[in-house]
């Protein structure tokens, strides 16, 4: 099997990677080829949301998205939103609400919530809960996450 060079548009830059399987999930390209640490491996089954990234603004599960399906779509990861020195409003809301315990799920929470808030103005709490229904958290940080998303919604 021959290796292939693929161009990915990630966080505003074009990045070229070499892979030997074009059907490798996007998650491994981001983590292993590009060294990004925002998207996380949680299940590899699209069930938990820890791997969530934005593809053209939509929240998708990178663990079940083959590279071959990405094409020229613009990828944004947690790193692409902001940094500790300059966090995005949604990231700042999570900091303000201290909305993490182990934090392993938080990438998915922020990426899912950011995509949701971009299309939903002034969401109700019930709407936020539904929007995050397929993002799992094991530490039980849900109420803080809800407060953070509400805070970000009112600042948006």
């Amino acid at each position, binding site marked *: 099997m021959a290796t292939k060079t693929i161009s990915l548009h990630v966080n505003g830059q074009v990045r070229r990677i070499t892979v*030997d399987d074009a059907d490798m999930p996007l998650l491994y390209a981001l983590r*292993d080829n590009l060294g990004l640490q925002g998207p996380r491996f949680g299940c590899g089954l699209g069930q*938990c949301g820890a791997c969530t990234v934005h593809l053209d603004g939509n929240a998708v599960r990178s663990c079940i998205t083959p590279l071959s399906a990405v094409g020229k779509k613009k990828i944004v990861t947690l790193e692409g939103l902001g*940094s*500790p020195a300059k966090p995005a409003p949604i990231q700042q809301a999570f900091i303000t609400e*201290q*909305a993490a315990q*182990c934090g392993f799920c938080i990438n998915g929470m*922020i990426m899912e919530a950011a995509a949701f808030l971009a299309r939903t103005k002034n969401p109700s709490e019930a709407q936020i809960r539904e929007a995050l229904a397929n993002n799992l958290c094991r*530490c039980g940080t849900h109420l803080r996450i809800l407060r953070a998303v509400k805070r970000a919604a009112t600042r948006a």
Partner: protein
Amino acid sequence: MRKPMTPTGKPTRREFLQGTGLLVVSFSIPGLLRRADAQSATTGKTVALDEVDAYLAIDARGGVTLYSGKVELGTGVSTALRQIVAEELDVALAGVALVEGDTALTPAQGRTWGSLSIQVGGVQIRQAAATARQALLREAAKRLGVPADDLIVEQGTVRPRSGGKQVTYAELIGGKNFSLKVDKQAPLKDPAKYSIVGKPVPRSDIPPKVTGQFTYVQDFRVPGMLHGRVVRPPAIGAILESVDESSVGDIPGVVRVVRRNNFLAVVAGSEWAAIRAAQKLKASWSAWNGLPEQSRLWEYVRATKVNKDDVTSNTGEAEKALQQAARRISASYDFAIHSHASMGPSCAVADFKDGKLTCWSASQGPHELRTQLANMLSMKDSDVHVIYVEGSGCYGRNAHEDATADAALLARELGRPVRVQWMREEENGWDPKGPPTLMDLEAGLDASGQVVAWHSQLYVPEGVGSNVKLLAAEAAGLPFDKGMLPGNIINNSAIPYSFPNVRTVAHRLAETPFRPSWIRAPGRMQNTFCNEAFLDEVAVAAGADPFEFRLRYLSNDPRGTELLKRLMSFARWQGRTSTRAVSGDIASGRGVTYVKYELARTYVGAVADVEVNRRSGDIRVKHVAVVQDCGQIVNPDGVRNQIEGNVVQTVSRTLKEEVTFDRSRVTSLDWASYPILTFPEVPDIDIDLIDRPAEKPWGVGEPAASVVPSAIANAVFDATGARLRSVPFTPAKLRAALQNA
């Protein structure tokens, strides 16, 4: 003090700190640096539990480094422990860096378990800091020619109270050792003067965690590293008969198939190649079906050989008093097998070079793991170096240790660093499990409704040895821990109530279906569920309000009494709902519960409000009110975060979670078959903390979890008249209970 530069030119911890006033506790520094860092610092660094230098160092610029054997599992202790040091030394919090869980650098303060990081670890660290402060003041007194009693410290600078010449910690000790034993008598700062402890200081790990800058063990890399995946057998006790290595010959990047007895793994240059190879590798295994039938689990537990009885309390003559009681009530309770079900499957990196092993692991017990790995590989402890790198939350002994053993074995086989990342089905299928728990209870009332006797019999596996066995060691035919260690699961089988005749016995079983280990509030949760739900049955039999009933038998415990009274008011308790609110199929109710953790420390009371669908059997926990007294509170927001997590996680365990299995293996291998609570189902929570700054700090990581199942069970009874005595409270169980109610 080391002054590292990073290969990428990123700021070091200290520079980052100085630049922003923030501190990245868990390193944003690339792994290679930390490794060199740890090795260079190894020389001469004491880790003895009674030495100040084991815990603390002050560098030439006055920066303080705390070396903690207790590690950050996501609970916030990395911030709280630094608060303790900053407070006791009178330095800025941002000036305290943390090195955690490194067998070459940190004292062996015991596993990060049992809600003891602050209560034990923090108190040890506080005493070391108090000793250091005394020594610094003595030295300053000499240099300044002023009595130590006349000196004050602000931000690491010592000066006479009346003003005048001053001297900094950096000038006094910078870069040198204290060479002092920890003085158990060294005076502690008066809590009335605290300005850092007791404050809701923001956690230093959250900014990097919400921006993708945090390095979890799952992100940890070293140069030249290979990726390993273990191929698990299709049945727990299966024997590996043959392997067809050619079956993965067409996958580019596969470096080696490793087989050692029943340990089978693939190692590849890329992670994806390792995953594909592990899926594709053809191997044949023997059949094995040694598990009990799940549908007859409790019969199996009752039939299991009892190795010994632990009598956990014995007052008066319970059996005789039961025989003479005017009224007797009995019930059996059970609690399902649970998985830790961490969000991120376990992961570790190992490197074996020149006869020495280095492992980067998220184990909650790096020191204990070092001994286990040395035993497995027949090495000296001193040739094994385990370095903690935070992982996904573990909530006990999950599989981080097993992933580390996998990586260690592969690194030795390959002679190159190997990273092993477990897959979801491995994590759910092979993490050690919270064992099945069964309790029979009986109580006796006299004619006036007073409790005269309480007798309980608990059926749980025995605890033997000091470690949970490592899967790789056993599979590979290497030395492994033969015992089984479920944690101290007989705790809280005895009760806090002063009945005249009480006997509580734990029958310790010779075996249990799965490798057992501790999961958050091990035993305390199960036993508190049984005791507090049964107590609710007894209170109903006695015609008493559940608050009043508990208070009646807690008269010798003023803190417990205060807590329950405060909860009664906080939850606006108005007595048991005499007419249950029913609208259509929906019934609502409230339940109260209480624990004194291990009968020795943190007090928690809770009131749960539930809505029950009588037709479907669905239970919705709407709200939980919690009052907690954990003595001195180091970080109130950290405590609240833990209570919220305890409640939500345990609502999940109570309503949904149950490991399923056939005769060969676990079958609940993903989030569809092992569902946990989701956002729409999460209850609202209100918390009232009783702060006692002058008291000892007690643990908070588990106690609030232990009260949740009984609070829900009691609320469901209040709503429907049906008793739920079997966790999880599935709709089918509730429908069955409603038919019997």
